[in-house]
């Protein structure tokens, strides 16, 4: 039997490379590229999870990835104060305000509408899992047009996973850990990772880099 010996690492490398090659179809950035937003208003995220701190956790993590992506992000704590002083009590109420009104008062080019699908730790017999899942839509406040939408998740389970998301996740985890340092609760930490994946740039099918980024105006991330 004189079979060609293929070393196991070669098989693995091939598997990884093909993993990189298979991906979702590219996002249509036509509206985004035309709108060229510079200033973003992140509205309070609508929370569909039972965890009461979720809105604060996700909202407070939205500024860093978007600012590092090259946008000016209106200060969320002051935006929160403005809403409360004007009787806008819930995230749903805030997200229902007409685009023209938001544009008039805040002067932002676009608003970021976020929704929290999952946030928290589920305790099971064998292993507990902390999971955060978020969705975002960026809407131009001048035209009302949808510029981009996406979703992302982060979970404590992925450190054991063999998938592509697993190892990339580990790399991202390491980066975000450094950024946020020691956070009090696990969900808050995973919210940081999920938001980085959702709103960071440049990422394949992600938010386009903004005017303050060295990557501004370059073609969308290719992989």
């Amino acid at each position, binding site marked *: 039997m004189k079979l060609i010996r293929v070393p*196991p*690492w070669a098989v*693995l*490398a091939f598997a*990884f*490379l093909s993993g*990189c090659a298979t991906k979702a179809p590219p996002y249509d950035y036509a509206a985004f590229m035309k709108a060229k937003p510079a*200033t973003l208003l992140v509205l309070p995220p609508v929370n569909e999870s039972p965890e009461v*701190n979720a*809105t*604060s956790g996700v*909202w*407070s*993590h939205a*500024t*860093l990835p978007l*600012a*590092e992506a*090259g*946008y*000016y*992000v*209106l*200060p*969320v*704590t*002051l935006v*929160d*104060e*403005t809403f*409360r*002083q*004007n*009787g*806008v009590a819930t995230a749903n109420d805030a997200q229902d*305000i007409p685009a023209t*009104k938001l544009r*008039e*008062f*805040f*002067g*932002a080019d676009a608003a970021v509408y976020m929704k929290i699908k999952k946030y928290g730790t589920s305790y099971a017999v064998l292993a507990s899992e902390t999971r955060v899942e978020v969705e975002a839509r960026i809407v131009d406040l001048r035209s009302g047009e949808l510029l981009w939408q996406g979703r992302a998740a982060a979970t404590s389970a992925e450190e054991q996973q063999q998938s592509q998301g697993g*190892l*990339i996740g580990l*790399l991202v985890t390491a*980066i975000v850990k450094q*950024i*946020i*340092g020691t*956070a009090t609760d696990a969900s*808050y930490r995973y919210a*940081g990772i999920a938001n980085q994946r959702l709103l960071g740039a*440049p*990422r394949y099918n992600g938010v386009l880099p903004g005017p*303050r*980024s*060295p*990557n501004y105006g370059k073609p969308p*991330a290719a*992989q």
Partner: protein
Amino acid sequence: MKAASLSRRVLLVVSVALFAGCAHKAMAPLYMWEAFPKMQYDTLLRPGVTPLEQVGAMEAQAEKARAAGAALPPGFRAHLGMLKLSAGDVDQARQLWQAEKAAFPESTPYMDQLLKRLDAPVKKDNPA
């Protein structure tokens, strides 16, 4: 046994190298963040209660950024201005909101709205 564990290690190194190839090169951050996201979190968690204890940490961070020639993140000065206002220091709040405008001209419309209120705090104008 030994050979197996070595080849496993080589495999790990190779796969990490491959992944690094797939991932985008990390750029140097645009801003010095430190604990600012966490401060925003703490502030959002307790609506109506202004965490004045953040002032010291923020001023230290601003000093550190100045010394390092690093840029403060968007909203940093505005947030500190809000804390100053809660402590009753209207002049400092005004200065910091002006500084936010100077550092980020994109913030001008919103900062102007806040400054307008500062000068006429009794009158409540409704954005909605």
